[in-house]
């Protein structure tokens, strides 16, 4: 009780040296904001949490019919086409939910930012939890489908958590950058829905990345989600899908670059949020 509190010095341009410690100290706020978002999410809806299942499931059905049945694109190895699509739907909806929610997060919490101090990273950070919960729910469909197709996962399944983290990192990098920019220029609010819709078709969600000609593979991997989706397919479908290693490393490098960019931009603009929002 009587420990001497450290001096807090407020000065222009002073980077707080305890920023990351502070972030840890505010973990309860992080959790409660995440909990708030989750519990508010499906309030006043009739089917509630079922929405988290219906949306990816229907998209999967449509993609399977269009790409698998009508366009007759090949699946990875001899895995069922629907399963291959859903193995990509999982990371894609995790990514797109996390990206769109984190990039709008500061604006939708404007009242908090103008009135209380806390490390602002908490707000976009907490949206990752919401996206992750939705992911867990739709994972139930995955299990159901694997049972239906009697498809046993291999040892690769154990590495799935790594790819989940990768998908989250891929979304939070640009998410942080855009949410910070969004505070100043609301233009970015209109960009994200477009990016998400567009990305669904240029990422290998409805089709296998093997469909892309070999000489374009590396270029294709500039889209960081290509690496993440390949990783998901590899660990869920086991031996039937393989990872194109140079492409995967490139995706990884791009994810790390965006993460660095997002965090550094965010930190730089953070202190002016209250003046601009």
């Amino acid at each position, binding site marked *: 009780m009587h420990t001497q509190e450290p*001096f807090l*010095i*407020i*000065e*222009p341009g002073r980077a707080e040296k305890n920023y990351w410690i502070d972030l840890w100290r505010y973990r309860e706020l992080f959790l409660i904001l995440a909990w708030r978002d989750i519990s508010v999410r499906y309030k006043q809806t009739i089917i509630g949490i079922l929405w988290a299942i219906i949306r990816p499931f229907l998209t999967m059905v449509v993609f399977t019919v269009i790409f698998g049945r009508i366009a007759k694109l090949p699946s990875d190895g001899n895995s069922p086409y629907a399963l291959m699509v859903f193995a990509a739907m999982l990371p894609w909806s995790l990514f797109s939910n996390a990206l769109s929610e984190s990039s709008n997060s500061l604006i939708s919490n404007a009242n908090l930012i103008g*009135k*209380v*101090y806390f490390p602002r990273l908490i707000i976009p950070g907490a949206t990752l939890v919401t996206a992750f919960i939705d992911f867990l729910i739709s994972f139930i469909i995955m299990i159901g489908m694997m049972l239906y197709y009697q498809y046993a996962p291999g040892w690769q399944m154990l590495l799935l958590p790594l790819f989940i983290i990768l998908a989250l990192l891929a979304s939070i990098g640009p998410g942080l950058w855009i949410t910070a920019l969004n505070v100043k220029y609301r233009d970015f609010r209109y960009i994200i829905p477009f990016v998400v819709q567009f990305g669904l078709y240029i990422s290998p969600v409805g089709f296998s990345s093997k469909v892309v000609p070999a000489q374009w593979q590396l270029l294709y991997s500039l889209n960081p989600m290509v690496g993440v989706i390949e990783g998901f397919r590899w660990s869920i479908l086991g031996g039937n899908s393989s990872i194109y290693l140079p492409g995967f490393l490139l995706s990884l490098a791009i994810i790390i670059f965006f993460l660095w960019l997002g965090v550094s931009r965010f930190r730089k603009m953070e*202190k002016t949020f209250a003046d601009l929002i």
Partner: protein
Amino acid sequence: MSDIVIKSENLGKKYVIGHQAEKGRGVTFREVLMQNARTLWSKTKDLAAGKAIIQGDTMEEVWALNDASFEIRRGEAVGIIGRNGAGKSTLLKILSRITEPSTGRVTINGRVASLLEVGTGFHPELSGRENIYLNGTILGMTRVEIKRKFDEIVAFAEVETYLDTPVKRYSSGMYVRLAFAVAAHLEPEILVVDEVLAVGDAAFQKKCLGKMGDVAQEGRTVLFVSHNMNAIEQLCMRCILLEKGTIRQTSSNVTQIIKGYLFPSDQEIRLSQWINDGEEFENYWFKPKIFFITDAMGNSLSNPVSNNQDIWIQIEGRIDRLDPALEIGYSIYNVDGIALYWSYFNDQEVSQWPVFSRGEIILRTKIPKRFLNEGIYTIELRASLRCRMWITEPGKKSPSLNLIIQGGLSDGPYWTEKREGVIAPLLEWKGKMKNK
């Protein structure tokens, strides 16, 4: 071991505000397009360079707070007063780390909790119980702390029966009570409070004020911004007066400093007349020339004015073209910029209206004695052609003068000091024994 918990040195905060330049007339469509293209291009360049984009063509720097140095000791309750825009909120925002200062530094020694609003982060869909946890955490309490004080908070807010109802179904009174209850149970070393007592009904305000007093009694440091001078006087042992972003005065004689704030000696504020410099408000219908206050005999009055005499407002001007839609009057505002009322010569019945012809006119109207309370008022001249155009538009620069009322509140022996209230009319009382 120093007892100073907050030390501020040359603290300043600058905002850059953009103004829209007046666009010239007769610009062709092509020119407009070109101009827009140029603006877009320069904005894109700014964006790429990471500079702040300011809406508007010219920029102006505004110092919301300038060169503020002060010290606050442990256990002190300090009031911060000043007019709107004096920099009070900016100061609190810097101290609570919401915004960064532009110059200077503050050293804070202790855990700060700031209460710039009650119910920050309340979510309408969540129940009262859930919102207590949410709001408490946002204000910086830990889960364990909230759990420990939960019953106390609920009792203070008097919402026991509605604990599991979404707060969107609460009445606004319940909502505010719950919000304040959470805030009142914070236990920081330094509490920063902004004008939160201005909510709720009178009884609840009293309860809040009492709670704030307790906090100060317990030896915590309190920084308190308010327009409620009674509250400041009751709670604070020291007072900082801010004026246009700078600290005007700091003193432990709170009563003295409040007097100085309410009745400044400043020339500008004492200004009791307005005179047209010759070219202002040029128009055919009514050009105001002089606008001032006088006594009943027509002698001009200077501020402050005692409340035991009628105050006449005199408006003089020139009419070059008669228009039946001409309306002349005034609007009066208190120190917080709140309009008390508007009055026009054509408020009365038509036969009473003055008849004007072309030439110089004089209008006089009376503010009865003992009608307004002690304080500073701004009176603005209002002239317009009804439903057609403003000659002196509200919100823009209008002829204005200040009226300061001080003293002469009543003839009774007890009402000599200012009482709370927007107005202070002297009303008639009658009484007798019931049975006689």
